[in-house]
């Protein structure tokens, strides 16, 4: 072979690296997604058992904590941080599905359900959230979002916000999964009863599909709006308004942005599990990890941006009020938590994901995603534990910064049990709701083709309407 022939051979080989994979057959997709609802693996059962044990431990921790009563708000700081951590991670994850559906991103298909299914955890978190209501101090004499009125504004609106979000999440998952339930009804005779009830007599008529598409988009948009509002209200209610003199208008937006960041991170980790042990290697691939990695990179930059917007204004203001707030939240008793949050939520994901080799890979993004998940945990601690440690919120300014409140045994049990409970709920939900959206995958097959463009194979994506 001459040198030139060899080089042209190399070029052809090189071009072949970019060949997009062919479509799987519709039957294969049904078998892989719906068929997997039939039986659970041994590994799955082991994990369910393990998480259930941890959750029971958490219940024990709760009883231990509750036996001390609700008068001492400081003692409940870690509990509040845990509830808000689940809110920031699991309850934000559906937004990945919502946003990518809104912009009709083709690569979302294998990811959307895994992300939106996290909304189920919202119901669990709603019950975890309820005890926090007993910890809200009276409105008189402190800053608050609410006016003091007979119905008891904070209690009513907080429950409405959190409950509404949980309900919307359920509605979103159920509506989106309707066609999948119908597919399960028609393919799994042994579980026909359950799926017949869940699918509400779904038939894939044209009209039904049109309504379904519209409903999924509208419910998704509502979920997004509701998440932003709930994040705004709860972050103000359970941290900012408990600290006299803390009045940062960017804080609720910062809280929401961290939610979006951790929603993406949560989805990435779930996708890795689906790919490695869930048996979806063929469906969950580079496209999904890369797509989410780009978003995670952008959100990590936004984390810094929103934090910096807050910091620079306080740093310049330099009033005693502002200096004490900076001390409490960043450079004082919770400086280690703040430092870890800063490192893990911004610096590590930024540097890693800015590197092409890590961003454009399957393993890189989900492993990097663990970093903001850890960072956000410490971030919630510095925000909520510090706020809960203020004994007297009825002042105009914070004059004394309280010392660090470290967790005790009950806190450890509570936090670990709570997070384990959230994962457990998700795992249990995957036994009923297909973890890959069957209808979106089937639609994807219809709208995707691999065709030659002159001398190279090219991926063609249909864009209806």
């Amino acid at each position, binding site marked *: 072979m001459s040198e030139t022939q060899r080089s042209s051979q190399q070029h052809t080989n090189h071009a072949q690296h970019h060949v997009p994979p062919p479509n799987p057959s519709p039957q294969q997709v049904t078998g892989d997604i719906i068929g997997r609802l039939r039986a659970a693996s041994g590994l799955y059962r082991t994990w369910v058992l393990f998480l259930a044990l941890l959750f029971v431990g958490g219940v024990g921790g709760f009883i231990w904590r509750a036996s001390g009563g609700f008068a001492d708000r400081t003692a409940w700081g870690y509990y509040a941080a845990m509830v808000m951590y689940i809110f920031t991670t699991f309850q934000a994850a559906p937004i990945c599905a919502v946003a990518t559906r809104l912009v009709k991103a083709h690569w979302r298909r294998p990811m959307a359900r895994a992300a939106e299914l996290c909304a189920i955890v919202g119901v669990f978190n709603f019950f975890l959230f309820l005890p926090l209501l007993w910890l809200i101090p009276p409105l008189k004499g402190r800053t608050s979002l609410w006016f003091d009125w007979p119905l008891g504004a904070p209690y009513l609106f907080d429950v409405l916000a959190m409950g509404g979000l949980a309900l919307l999440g359920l509605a979103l998952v159920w509506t989106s999964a309707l066609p999948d339930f119908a597919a399960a009804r028609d393919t799994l005779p042994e579980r026909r009863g359950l799926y017949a009830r869940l699918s509400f007599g779904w038939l894939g008529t044209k009209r039904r599909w049109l309504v379904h598409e519209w409903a999924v988009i509208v419910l998704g948009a509502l979920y997004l709006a509701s998440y932003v509002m709930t994040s705004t209200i709860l972050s103000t209610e359970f941290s900012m308004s408990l600290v006299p003199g803390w009045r940062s208008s960017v804080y609720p937006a910062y809280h929401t942005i961290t939610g979006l960041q951790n929603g993406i991170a949560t989805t990435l980790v779930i996708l890795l599990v689906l790919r490695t042990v869930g048996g979806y290697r063929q469906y969950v691939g580079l496209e999904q990890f890369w797509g989410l990695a780009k978003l995670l990179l952008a959100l990590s930059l936004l984390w810094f941006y929103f934090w910096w917007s807050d910091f620079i204004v306080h740093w*310049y203001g330099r009033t005693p009020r502002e200096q004490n707030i900076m001390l409490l939240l960043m450079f004082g008793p919770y400086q280690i938590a703040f430092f870890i949050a800063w490192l893990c939520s911004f610096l590590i994901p930024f540097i890693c994901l800015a590197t092409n080799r890590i961003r454009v890979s399957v393993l890189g993004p989900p492993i990097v995603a663990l970093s903001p998940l850890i960072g956000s945990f410490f971030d919630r601690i510095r925000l909520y534990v510090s706020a809960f440690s203020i004994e007297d919120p009825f002042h105009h300014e914070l004059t004394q910064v309280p010392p660090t409140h470290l967790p005790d045994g009950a806190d450890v049990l509570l936090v670990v049990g709570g997070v384990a409970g959230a994962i457990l709920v998700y795992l249990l939900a995957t036994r009923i709701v297909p973890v890959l959206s069957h209808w979106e995958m089937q639609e994807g097959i219809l709208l995707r083709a691999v065709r030659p463009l002159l001398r190279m194979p090219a991926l063609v994506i249909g864009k209806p309407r």
Partner: protein
Amino acid sequence: MRERKVLSDSLINDELLRFPLHTPTWFWFAAGFLGLFILAFISAIGIMVVFGLGVTGLNKPVMWGWMITNFVFWVGISHAGVMISAILRLSQAEWRRPVTRAAEVLTVFSLATAALFPLIHTGRPWRAILWVFPYDFARGIWPSVRSPLIWDPSAIFTYLTGSTLFVYVALLPDLAVARDRTTGWRHAFYSALALGFRGTPRQWKLQTIAGILLSALILPVFVSVHSIVSWDFAVALVPVWHGTVFAPYFVIGAVHSGVSAVATMMAVLRWVFRLENYITPDHFDALGRLLVTVGTAWLYFFFLDVVFALFSQEAEEVIVMQQRLFEWPWNFLTVMLLVTAYVIPVPLWLSRRVRRSITAMFFTSLLVNVGMWTERYWIIVPGLMKKYDFSYSWDQFTPSLIEITLVVGSFAIVFFGLLLFAKIFPIIPIFEQKEGQIFAEEIEVGRARVPAVIRE
């Protein structure tokens, strides 16, 4: 995408180079008309320099008025280009193709115009350079890095340089087309600018990468520019200015007004240059959808700003808020900015019919910018009016004829710049259109043929 026209390369060349290569009579009238306003603008500056800042409506507590409002407004508009161009490039949105260049050029001219305002506001523009750049080795006096007024020029300089180069790099292939279709001095001019671009696979590949890489680099700059502009206000302890939300609030407001300005401009381009083959209702539909999201985000930040000013229960914040919400003319301006920037346009954009109507999009997007100009004025002036809460040295602000001339003139400068650019260069990227034709495909779903695109 519903409408997809098959256009030959030579037709695309002809239509998009028609205005640069042939001069209609109306061009001279338009240029002359705008020139009159620019002349008035220059005269106003002359008067201000000769007689001092006393000829403006500025006074003791209100030392920033219309000029700074206009500065913030034009910096906001300048966020159109990179927002549209960078985000749509990064997300490989097909509908970006005819929009990118006009948006980028709008960025360049509005940013340059914006930069004029703080400069003339100094009263002695020629000395401003001495306050900004480190030069004074003799006296040892250096610019203060701690002042946000020093951050501004650094951010604007970076953004202006970046976006100008961005426009130029993306213009290279089109300059080559112009070179190949001209003779004489025009040929020499375009040849020199095209740098010998000839369309090899390597050059095209780098052109594509350049679009993405420069987008990714300019996007963070774009965010920083309006943030820094916002810190001009926010880092000061002036009531209602000292808000942490200012940076993202200003940026999202800039995007709202910038994308709206792009919609307005696209409508004008379509009408004036008869670009029906390139700027279609699909593009307005997509812009409308984007604007619904951006507008709603802006409203969220607007409320954060208002709610948390009241949340603070600080006496001075509450006084200014009270004035904004209940005292004439500020109560009118509050309602006006909300109605024009959100209440009218955004619900209308929820309707597909409105989004696809170019006339409707022209007027609604124009309305947004009326609202956004008002919003900037509403943000800047009231805080200053009651700045000295101890001495009660409070005053009102009324713009003088000079300031009105300057503001009107600034619009003329930007329009003139756009017109001149469109006269010399293709305002719609020719190569992007051709690429769009190559990437257009169809997929058969049952009996239906669905429009499709090739993804690299």
